[in-house]
């Protein structure tokens, strides 16, 4: 109920939706917007005009949500793409953003430069760059500079300025 009330305050227009769908929509919007505050290393994309791919693990509804959201969106010259991540296909089909819908991220690979966003109420887990938290009915997020550094990602200061519970790197 608290969640619903928070959503009603934040985005009253979607009050007709179910609470889960509304929250999902906000998170999807955040995922798309995060892209703008992140700088990937040169090797993160397969080509100059390769699309920016957002992978979703464990939430097909979120995939659909994202797909409808990024139809006309561009990141620079790149198109957006959203797909469900199944099993271990990340090695063959890399993504630039990975949303892990349930549970902390269990990395099998620490290397690839991708923004890993988790949705763990208890806080940032290892291997996650950003983590959604809901506080006072608002969707907020935590950020780990340590993880970003490890993945050779640069997080924009704008993103950091609104992040809760900013975890700095070892330096």
């Amino acid at each position: 109920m608290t969640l619903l009330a928070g959503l009603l305050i934040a985005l009253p227009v979607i009050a007709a939706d179910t609470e889960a769908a509304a929250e999902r929509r906000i998170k999807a919007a955040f995922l798309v917007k995060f892209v703008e505050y992140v700088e990937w290393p040169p090797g993160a994309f397969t080509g100059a005009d390769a699309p920016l791919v957002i992978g979703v693990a464990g939430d097909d509804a979120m995939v659909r949500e994202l797909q409808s959201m990024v139809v006309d969106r561009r990141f620079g010259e790149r198109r957006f793409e959203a797909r469900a991540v199944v099993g271990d296909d990340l090695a063959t089909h890399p993504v630039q953003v990975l949303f892990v819908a349930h549970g902390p991220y269990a990395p099998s690979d620490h290397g690839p430069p991708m923004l890993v966003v988790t949705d763990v109420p208890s806080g940032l887990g290892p291997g996650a760059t950003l983590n959604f938290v809901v506080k006072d009915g608002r969707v907020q997020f935590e950020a780990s500079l340590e993880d970003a550094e490890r993945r050779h990602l640069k997080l924009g200061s704008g993103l950091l300025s609104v992040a809760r519970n900013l975890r700095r790197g070892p330096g």
Partner: protein
Amino acid sequence: MIRIPGRSISAKLLVVVLATTIAALLVTAAAMVVYDVRTYERAAMRDLITQADILGRASTPALTFDDPRAASETLELLKAEPDIVSAAIYTPRGAAFATYPPGTHAVPALPEPDGARVEGRELVVFKRVVDRNQILGTVFVRAHYGLLDRMTAYLAILGTVMIVSLAIAVGMSIWLNRAVTRPIIAISDVARRISETRDYSLRAQKTTTDEVGNLVDGFNDMLAEITRRAATLEDSNESLARAEQALQQLNTELEQRVARRTAELEAANREMETFSYSVSHDLRAPVRAIVGFSQILGEDHGEQLDAEGRRKLGIISDEAKRMGRLIDDLLTFSRLGRQAVDPIELDMTDMARRMFERLKMQNCETRVELKLTPLPSVVGDRALLDQVWANLVANAIKYSAKRDQPVVEIGAISDEREHIYYVRDNGAGFDPRYKHKLFGVFQRLHDASEFTGTGVGLALVQRIVLRHHGRVWAEGKPDQGASFYFALPREAPHAAS
């Protein structure tokens, strides 16, 4: 023409300089103030818009990720800007997202479109926050607008500048004035000295080559011209005086000469009259002797002569008598020239009537009728004017005697200057072609055989009337009678000659 206050040129120039300076300063100041106000307002608005833009950009993540706390923190940064009174960030839907100072209600409930305006003594700016063509929200900023303070400071500076400028202008104009006005004052001094002393030999000194220098030249030329004219005038005055003197001298000489000539003429005239008198007088004795002896011859020896002899003796006697009368008349005429006029008031009516009666008796002309109208009296010599009446009346009786109804008419006409007396008859008259001869001595228009007379009478009349300062004339036609006029002045002039 504009009257500039001030009695001297220096004062007027000072007024001109001050007025010009003040006018220039005021216009400049006004232009600067207007320009500055506009510039200041624009700059202030631009600054505030920039400020709002920066705020918007800084709040983009907060708006993007729906984080009012972050937005509030961004607004908190405005503390460094004391001119900013209040600020707010609105969501795209118009709800207040964050405010500054935190929790204030002094911000608009709803955002407005982009724009900046002055509200009283504050500037208000609304600015959309746009990110990738997406409106994220609106920033509102209200700042203290220090125009009045700025204007006060500005005017104070302008006032100071103005006072200093005026002081410098006054100093410079006094200094420049001397250079401009000194030559003018020099001319003015010379002009005043000349009008006081009338000394036209003074000259103004030329110190400049500008218009004042030209003025000095013109002034000096004029003075030279005045001096020259005055000299010319004096010369011509002198020569005029000399000419006048010469003329006067000439006049005096001329008068003297006239007087001398007149005296000579009078003397000559007198001599001639004396001569003619003595000649006439001397002629009388032989003529009387001829008359007397012819009478004695007729009485004593008449029987010895035949009828023809006696007739011829009669002719000798008659002609001698006639000659005697001629001589008498000549003597009378001549005497008139020397006889003094003794003027008294005369009753001309009485004189004319008496003369007519006497002559009528003398000539035994009982048929002659007299028509006498009253005559004005006149001042004159009784004996002389009696002579006039005698001659004119005698002539009238004589020449009208052959008429069946002889009439003699005596009358007078008066005007304001003279009395004109006339004697008119209905007798033989005369040919008007010869009327200029009527009044000459021995001039006769009629044959002596027809009318007796010596031809001296009318000459006498003219002489007497002229001595009374009058005039005589006659009108007539053959066989239609004659009119003789003599005019005497009403006021008898003195000094009859």
